[in-house]
């Protein structure tokens, strides 16, 4: 601690403290407009489908995983030299061992690719959020348009820094009259089959090009749905028709009445699986994103750093939890229901 105030370090210390003071007094980061659905990037569409910023982030994560994977297996050597080959081998070996401990060698090998794909995809999808520019580079949209689309009433004034237009922390709020006026104009434009454009933008909001992929419920629910459906397919393929027994089918299988209730619970738990998988991932990453926004808003420098480290961990943890739960659901589906076989 004492060394912090000696020689060269003293200069750094003073510099950092000065940066903090400057950031508190002069540099105010506006709090981004937080929207639960992924934002459509204005003017971008493929075959009539709007492109959202989470889709761009998803593709970015895809490319990252594929690139790392393909570079790791290109020119593989028996005595590994490249960093990528080493680290990928390490990852594969660790999780191969872990899955073998849980489900045995055969199941581990069967589902390791699914496990690793989920893990790596979500890992990079989550970690991209920490790269500068994510959530902060994008398209300026007039607050009036944003209000017409999503009901946002708070925009920011803009300034130009190094030729780039940037939001400043001065807020612009739409008054009630303005809101009513925009509503009327938007309705009018819609009836005329045109896009609504305000005459004059009072303020702007930022629609970032990139937003963490897992902050889009379409991704998390899509994955969860796929995983749970796959687990049932696996169940049918390994256990056979008897797999239905775990859900209430007393008429077909002649089970005891209590099994009806157990079956109903099981049925509900399948939906709970989808919901919990999807919302755990979504909630953690979305709240992490907001946490980083708020920290940067409070103090632009230094303060967000520990939270970024936390998000690094959370990003890995959520990817791992999703992947390991997938494996466990698959594994559970292959168990024929206890006792039924020997009645």
């Amino acid at each position, binding site marked *: 601690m004492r060394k912090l105030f000696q020689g060269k370090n003293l200069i750094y210390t003073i510099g950092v403290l000065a940066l903090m003071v400057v950031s508190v007094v002069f540099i105010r980061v506006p709090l981004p407009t937080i929207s639960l659905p992924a934002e459509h990037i204005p003017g971008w569409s493929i075959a009539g489908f709007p492109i959202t910023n989470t889709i761009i982030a998803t593709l970015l994560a895809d490319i990252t995983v594929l690139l790392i*994977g393909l570079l790791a297996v290109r020119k*593989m050597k*028996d005595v590994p030299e490249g960093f990528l080959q080493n680290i*990928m081998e390490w990852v*594969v070996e660790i999780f191969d061992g872990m899955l073998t401990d849980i489900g045995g060698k055969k199941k581990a090998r069967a589902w390791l690719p699914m496990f690793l794909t989920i893990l790596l995809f979500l890992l990079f999808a989550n970690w991209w959020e920490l790269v500068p520019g994510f959530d902060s580079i994008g398209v300026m949209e007039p607050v009036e348009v944003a209000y017409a689309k999503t009901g946002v009433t708070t925009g920011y004034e803009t300034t130009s820094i190094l030729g780039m237009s940037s939001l400043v922390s001065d807020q612009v709020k739409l008054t009630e009259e303005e809101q009513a006026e925009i509503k009327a104009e938007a309705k009018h434009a819609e009836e005329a089959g045109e896009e609504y454009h305000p005459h004059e933008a009072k303020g702007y909001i930022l629609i970032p090009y990139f937003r963490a992929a897992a902050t*889009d419920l*379409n*991704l998390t*629910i*899509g994955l969860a749905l796929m995983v749970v459906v796959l687990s049932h397919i696996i169940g049918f393929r390994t256990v056979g028709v008897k797999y239905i027994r775990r859900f209430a089918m007393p008429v077909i299988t002649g089970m005891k009445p209590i099994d009806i209730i157990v079956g109903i619970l099981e049925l509900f738990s399948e939906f709970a699986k989808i919901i919990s998988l999807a919302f755990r991932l979504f909630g953690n990453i979305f709240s992490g994103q907001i946490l980083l926004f708020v920290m940067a808003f409070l103090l632009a420098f230094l303060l967000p750093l520990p939270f970024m480290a936390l998000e690094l961990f959370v990003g890995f943890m959520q990817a791992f939890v999703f992947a390991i739960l997938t494996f466990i659901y698959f594994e559970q589906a292959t168990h024929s229901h206890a006792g039924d076989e020997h009645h």
Partner: protein
Amino acid sequence: MDALGINGPFLLAQIVNFVILYLLLSRLVFPPLLKMLDERKQKIAEGLTAAEVARQEAEAERAQLMNQLEQERAEAQRRIAAASTQAEKVKAEILASAQKEAEEIKVKAKLEAEAEKQRILADAEKQIAELTMLATERVVRLGMDQSLQHKLIEDFLSETSLN
């Protein structure tokens, strides 16, 4: 649903995206990695077995060499012991022969000395006899002939024999 941003086509697009990613990764990336890991594991296991075999062989060879060395050492010990007893024997023989020789020399010297003594004594006796004869001759020159004379001398000599 709209407030949450859940939207059928997007959801489907995400699933399709994931499936494509899964197919690509599970075809192109994971099989070579797993193959490499398994092969390396097998190689290491083989290497370890080979090393164990080599170690055991070396151990056996070393034991054999030690055994041989031990045998040779024992042999050398035995030879040294044999040579030593041999030398002891030779020494004893030499000593014995030397003693014997010395004894012989001693005996021979004694005999010679005895002979010399006898000879000297005989000489002395003879001279004494001659001297006695001379003396006697002088005494009895006239009265005795030669034969009597000799007889007297003989008598005298036999009486005064030094033996």
